[in-house]
Each structure stands twice: as C-alpha cells, then as structure tokens.
C-alpha cells in the first residue's frame, strides 16, 4: 500500500516515456546513476541545512542574550562543514569526468553512422554508406538496431537546434558551421521519443522525432525497404494522385525518389507511409491527419514553412491514396 503510493508519486514526478530517469541505453544509465547519487547527496545537504536553520530559530528566538562565547566552537563547525562540502564537490567533479568518458566517447569500429540535419522544424536523417546507392534518406524517424552503438553526426541547415532523446543520451546542439559527433545505443526494442531542445523559432514546440529500436533482422529489413525507390502507383486514382503531387507546389520542396520530385527543402516522402507520425512527431500518420495537414498545415503548426494547400476534393483523395501507398 505504502509502496504503491510512493511509486505512484514517483511516476507522477519522474515517469513518462520521455523521462531522463527511464534510461534505455548504457549512456542514459550512466547519467541516471550520477543523477541519483547527486539527488541523495544534495537532498541530504538540503535537509541538514534546513534542520540547522530550524534549530537556530527554535533555540535562539527566546534567547535572552547574544552569545559570543561559543563563536569559536561555531567556527570549528563552519570549517568542518565547509571541508566536507569541498570533499563532496571533488567527488562530483570526478564523477562528472568519469561520466563524460563513459557517455561521450566510445571506442568502436564500423559503428552504424547516421547524419542528423536540423531544419526549421523537422529532422533530416541520412544513413551513411560508402556506396551512394545504399544511402538512405528519411525524416523524423530514426531506426536503429538494438544493442549496437550508433554514431550520430549532427549539423544544421538553418538555425541552432538540439537533438535530444532522453532515454538514450543527453542532448547535442546542431549548429550551423559545425559538425559534431556523439553516440546513442538502445538496450531494448522500443520507440523512444525525442524533441528539439534549443529554441529554434515559431515551431520549436512541434519538432519531435522518434527513435525506433528493432532487433537486427527487422532493422535490416526496414533499411532494405527504404533503399528502394517509391512504389509505382498501381491504379488510376493513385496515378492521378501522383499527378496532383507533381503538378502542385508539393514538388517544389519534397523528394519522392523514382519520380521527378527531387527537392530537399522539406522531408523526403519516398516511404512516407512507413512512418508512424507526420509533421515532426506532431500528428499520428493517419489518412485523416494527413488530409488535415495538407489542407491546414498553417493552423496546425502556425508559422511552419509548408503552405496550406487548397485542393479539389477529388485531387485530395487521389493524393492521399498515392501518399498512403508509399510504403
């Protein structure tokens, strides 16, 4: 009973699928460990200081006289307490450096390397490969194999963003003019949410992403499918949908590999239907949401760079059918 009340409070204060204290990678575990060490030590320090203040109030509020006599004893207390604080701070300092070593620098060969490029307000994700035809480009959804270290190379196309999936590691800024490297690694299969952490303009709030950790086999399957160009439309409606896509402003920003659409201003849509969310983690990828997004993107994410479209109902249905087929 008591235990469950505590754990309820705990999950209220610390839980959730986006929590620093629900680590799912060696790096996040390491940080979580340091966090709890500091939590308990600092908590104790807080309680002791407050007790000492309460003691002073309790004892001295009715004092008849100022007491200088015991000042030298107090000096000894102050010196002792300060000494303890210094020692604790040095312990934290060592913990910090050791923690950095374990979270930020991993010696590993032939790790999976992913480039993450920040855009206002979505994530471009490129799976590097020495063979150009094997390079995979996608958006807002990062698939990684479980248990394998993944090297992430970050950069930005416009302003500063910050890549952060709390279950997997701390954050790293994406700064124009810089490319930096850091690591994530998922312990278990699962979907780990992440979000931009550096203020980047209007839609900073709607710049989420998902890291999907799969067993190696499933991951390879996913990647093999992503390498393929877009599926040819198999019926007239979808063919019409492709026409709509190519004859409207969509084509000016998006790529669908295997068609004439090759612009990289917005996310690559070659395998749009395989993704779980649209608009950088803002909406579930359902036909209804997609329709709403195409027609009304400015009221869903005000200020974002995709204009709201006005399409005839037939055209919209065809476009949705086509996009829905891009598995």
């Amino acid at each position, binding site marked *: 009973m008591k235990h469950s009340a505590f754990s309820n409070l705990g999950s209220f204060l610390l839980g959730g699928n*986006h929590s620093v204290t629900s680590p799912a990678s060696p790096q996040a575990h390491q940080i979580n460990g340091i966090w709890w060490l500091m939590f308990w030590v600092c908590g104790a320090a807080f309680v002791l200081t407050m007790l000492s203040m309460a003691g002073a109030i309790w004892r001295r509020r009715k004092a008849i006289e100022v007491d200088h006599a015991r000042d030298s004893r107090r000096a000894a207390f102050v010196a002792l307490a300060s000494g303890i604080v210094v020692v604790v701070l040095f312990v934290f300092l060592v913990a910090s*450096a050791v923690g*950095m070593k374990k979270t930020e620098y991993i010696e590993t060969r032939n790790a999976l390397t992913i480039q993450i490029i920040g855009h206002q307000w979505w994530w471009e994700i490129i799976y590097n490969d020495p063979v150009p035809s094997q390079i995979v480009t996608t958006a807002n959804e990062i698939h990684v194999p479980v248990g394998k270290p993944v090297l992430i190379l970050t950069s930005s196309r416009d302003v500063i963003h910050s890549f952060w999936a709390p279950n997997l590691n701390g*954050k790293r*800024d994406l700064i124009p003019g810089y490319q930096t490297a850091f690591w994530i690694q998922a312990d278990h299969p699962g979907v780990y949410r992440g979000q931009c*952490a550096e203020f980047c303009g209007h839609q900073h709030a709607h710049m989420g992403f998902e890291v999907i950790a799969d067993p190696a086999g499933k991951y390879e399957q996913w990647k093999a499918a992503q390498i393929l160009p877009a599926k040819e439309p198999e019926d007239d409606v979808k063919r019409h949908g492709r026409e709509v896509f190519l004859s409207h402003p969509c084509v000016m920003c998006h790529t669908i590999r295997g068609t004439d659409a090759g612009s990289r201003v917005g996310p690559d849509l070659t395998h749009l239907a395989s993704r779980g969310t649209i608009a950088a983690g803002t909406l579930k990828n359902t036909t209804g949401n997609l329709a709403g997004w195409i027609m009304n993107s400015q009221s869903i994410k005000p*200020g974002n760079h995709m204009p709201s479209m006005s399409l005839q109902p037939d055209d919209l249905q065809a476009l949705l059918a086509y996009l829905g087929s891009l598995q």
Partner: protein
Amino acid sequence: MNPVDTKPIERSATDELLQLAETWREPPGFWGWFRCVHHQTIGKRYIVTAFIFFLLGGILAALMRMQLIRPENRFLGPDLYNQIFTMHGTTMMFLFAVPMMFEALAVYLVPLMVGTRNIAFPRLNAYSYYLYLFGAIMVWVALLTNTGPDAGWFSYVPLSGPGFAPGKRVDFWAQMITFTEVSALAVAVEIVVTVFKLRAPGMSLNRLPMMVWAETIVSFLVIFAMPAIMLSSSMLILDRLVSTHFFNPAEGGDALLYQHLFWFFGHPEVYIIFIPGLGIVSTIVATFSRRHIFGYMVLVLSLIATGFLGFGVWVHHMFATGIAGMGRSFFSAASMMISIPTTVQIFCWLATLWGGKLNIKLPLLWIFGFFFVLVMGGLTGVMLGVIPVDIQVHDTYFVVAHFHYVLIGGAVFPLFGGFYYWFPKITGRMLNHTLGNWHFWLFSIGFNMTFFPMHSLGLKGMPRRIYTYQPEMGWTTLNRIATFGAGLMFIAVLLFLINVFWSRRRGVVAGENPWGAGTLEWATSSPPPPYNFVELPTVNGREAVWDAAPNQPVVRGLRTDMREVLATNVLDADPDHKELMPEPTIWPFLAALATTFLFIASIFTPWGLVWGLFPVAVTMTGWFWPKGKDKVNQEIVEAEDAARA
C-alpha cells in the same frame, strides 16, 4: 546697522539646518523633476521604475502560465508566445533585476551607508537613470506594437541574425542592451568612486558594511562583464544592419562566438543580480540577530572569490554545443568551486543566527525563505555543473526551475526582505505586519508550487521555450499546478502593493532606527533629509551605530551654503580634501534625450550614428561647461583655499 560691529552674527544651529536644507533642496515643480541630481531622488526613481518592470514582467509570466495550463492551448499563438517569453526574460534580467539589485539599491543606499551627502558624479547618475528609462520604454513600446523581440533573452544567432529574424524586432532588443548597459556601467563607476573616496572618516576597508562590499564587488563585475554584451549585441546589430559577418559561418564568422561573448557577460550577470542579495542577507541577519555578523572576513573573501570565479564558468551554458570534452571539464571544475564561497556564507549566517538573539520580524522571515529557496537552487546548480547530468537537463524546465530558485531565491526574496527592512527608512513609516505576513506566505507557497514541479517537468523531458505540448506527454497536471502557483504569487504581489500604498500614508511612524540596526543609514532621520546627515559621522567599528564610542566625534567644517562633501583616502578613509557637488541641472536629461535619439535613429539607418553624434556632443559640452551657481561656488571656495594658503 552698526558699522563698528564687524563681528559676524553668531548663527544658531537651527539657522544652519535651514540653510543646509535650502542648499540641498531638490528643485520643485514640473521642470524641477528633470533637474534633480540627488542620489536619494534618483535612487527612489530607480526603485519605483524597476519595480514597475517587475510587475510588467510578472504579467508576461502570468500570460505564459495561462498558455501552458493545458496541452495544445490556443490562447497565445507561437508568434505572440515567443515575444512574450523573450520579453519576460529581457524585462526581468535587464529592466528589473540589474537596475533593482544593483543600480537602485546601490544608488540609494551606498552614499547613506558610507556616511556622505551625495553619490560621486551625481549628474552622471541622473543621466544613467534617464537612459535606463528611455531604453526600457523603447523596448516595451516595441512589444506593444507587435514588434517585440522574439529570439529569447539571449538572442542566439543565427535565429536572431539577418537571415532568420527579419524586421526590427531583434534590433530593438540589441539596442535596449546598449541603453541599459551604458546606464549600469555609469552607476558602477559612480559606486566605485563613492565607496573608494567618500567614506566617513574611520570607515577603513575592514569596516565596510557587507552591503557596501556587495555593491562594490558588483560594480567591478559590471565593469568587466558588461563590455562583453555591449560588443556582442553591437556585433549582432551590425550583422543585421550593415551586413558584417561576425556570426555568419558562410563568410568565416561563427555562431559560437556569440555564445562565448554572451555568456562571458551572462554568467557574471547572475552574480551581479545575486551578490547584492547576499549583501541584504548579511545586513538583515546581523540586525535581527542583534549581533555582529559571524565571520565578516570569510564573507568578504567569499564575495571577492565569487566575483572572480563568476568569470570562469561561462562555458557551462554551452556544455551541449560539442566543445572539446576536456575544455568543458575545466569549466565544470570552476562551477563546482564557485559553490564553495556561497556555501561558506550560508554557514556563517547560520552561525550568526545560532549566536544571536533573534528578533523575528518580516525582513528576517524573508531571509528564512531565502535560505529554503536558495539552498535548493544552489544544489540543483551543482547538479548542472556535472556535465553528464547537464547534457540531459540543459534547456529543459529543470533549468527553468533551477534559475528561478536561484534568481528569485537569491534576489527577490532578499529584495522583499530589504523592502520591509528599508521601507521605514525611505518613507518614514513601517509596512503593515499582517498584510506582510500574508504576502510572505502566499508568495512562498505560490513560488514553490510554481517552480518545484518544473524540476519534474524537466526530468520528464519538457524542453524550455515551447509554446505548447501534446497531451500524451504526461506534463499536463504538473503544468496546471505551476499555473495555480503563479496565481498565488500574483495575489501575493498585489497584497504587497496594497500594503505599500496604505502604509505610505497610514503606517506606524518609524522613527530614526526602528530595528535597532547598526549601519549608518539608520543614524539619520527617516526619511533622511536631502543632505543625508546633519553632521557627517565618523566611524568606530563595523556596525557604525552599535560600535560608536559614547562621545563619537562628528565631522565639522563642511559648508552649509554649498553642496560640499568630504573626500577621504581609499584604504583608511582619512580625510583628504573637499569637493563641491553639482547643483540641480537639466543637462543630463538633455544629454540622455540626445543619446536616445542617437541609439534609436541608428536602428533605422547607420547614418543615425553620424548625425546623432552632434546633439550628443552639444549636450555633453553644455553639461561640462562651468556656469551658474556651480561656477560661482567653485570660484568662492578656490579663492578661500588660496587665501588660507
């Protein structure tokens, strides 16, 4: 008229007092308002203005909390929300915290505490106030016309640069920085010179009141830190207006340079706000423990050490940028070290309380609140100094919680304590006790309700500066609690305002020294006369009033018919020479107007910088050129000096 009687008429003490009052009287009437140069007048204006901006910043905070009360709320759109949070931070940091904790308190209190009649360079002081006022009005008018800056209070490039922030919004922000920093720098110089040169005889360096130490050290922080932000904001505005490339990576510029410059100012800035708070705490703890502060030397050393260490921790705002690991770790070490002086100060205050005879009144109550809040904020600060923890919680609500605990705990709690403490000195009347109690408890509960849940929100992954969030994130309840807490704080501050307006007229009359305090501002009437002290005091110990000898001498020989002050030497405060202080004058106001024209015009055209220089030069010359009573008085005293030699 007896021609034989050449003996001057023996004038009575009352005559002298009347003459002194006439000499130091502030000019009356509407036009007189623009000519005031006394530190009490300017100090009170600073206090009132900065407090108004505290209220305005608070209203913006309330709007933000309303927006975040539920997920996907459409109360404020992203455009407005971004302007509001930017202006909340900007207002609180640049228009409230620095002007209040540093300029207002230092200008009002320091000359009284060191026992002189006016601040050094009173006209510069008036000029600094007008610049602050005009800059603040400019940026707020911009906000009200939907041209409010929207790139965050630190305006990181390239988001604030020419490519991503078109229009004038960020230009107003950058120029507001120039206004307020010129103002703070001027006050810093005045305070340093006042403390070094105008102390009462006997107040040697080892006897400075803690509040004076605090404001002096802050002056040095201002002097060394503010140039960095003047430059970074100037570089930003140059990038925006005349196409320089400081921060443009395509042309050899660098976005991180901005961050380095900003935080080289930005971290000391925190201490500029916080150290005066520490000064207030030391003052109130000593007065209400009814004893000398425990560990005066340690406290002084702590302030000095904090002042230095504050300049060596700026990179901890940039731990997530990918700077080389070992480089970052030095700043982590410095961030650990800077908690030592603050910790030691807390221990010293606790020791003072343990050795005192407590007089638990409202000011002390706020200091107890300060302990609770600041210690928690300090401990989360230590956590943020540890790099692996920082890269998790950096830029989340955990940081928002941390810096509100530190800044509200370290500055606003002591400030409210200070208001209750010095209100009787400034107005002659006490603030109401019952209302004060309500204010304290509502504010403290509201504060913790608002900001404690933010620690959790940060750990649960809520980034800062998002205008909304999705329902499935699990942040809703905690946000709602925070919004209700903000409501309590709002009510508490309203009660305080009512208390101020009511007590100003109907409060209990305070008398000279209602708390039985030891520093010099309590050795004169409440409110102090425009000449501060009838006769300048001399000092016999650290708490001048408590330590005064039974027959403590006073300084005699200053003129009563001119604004004359005594200059003493820097370390030992031995009398050195006399200086005349300027009479009321309109020139600082005119110079401030000219400077304002220069700054605002240059937002719209670079030529504004050129044409704007002429009125500035003219008004500055008018200010400098000796004339009127100042000139005549100077001639009289110099003739007397010559006659005496």
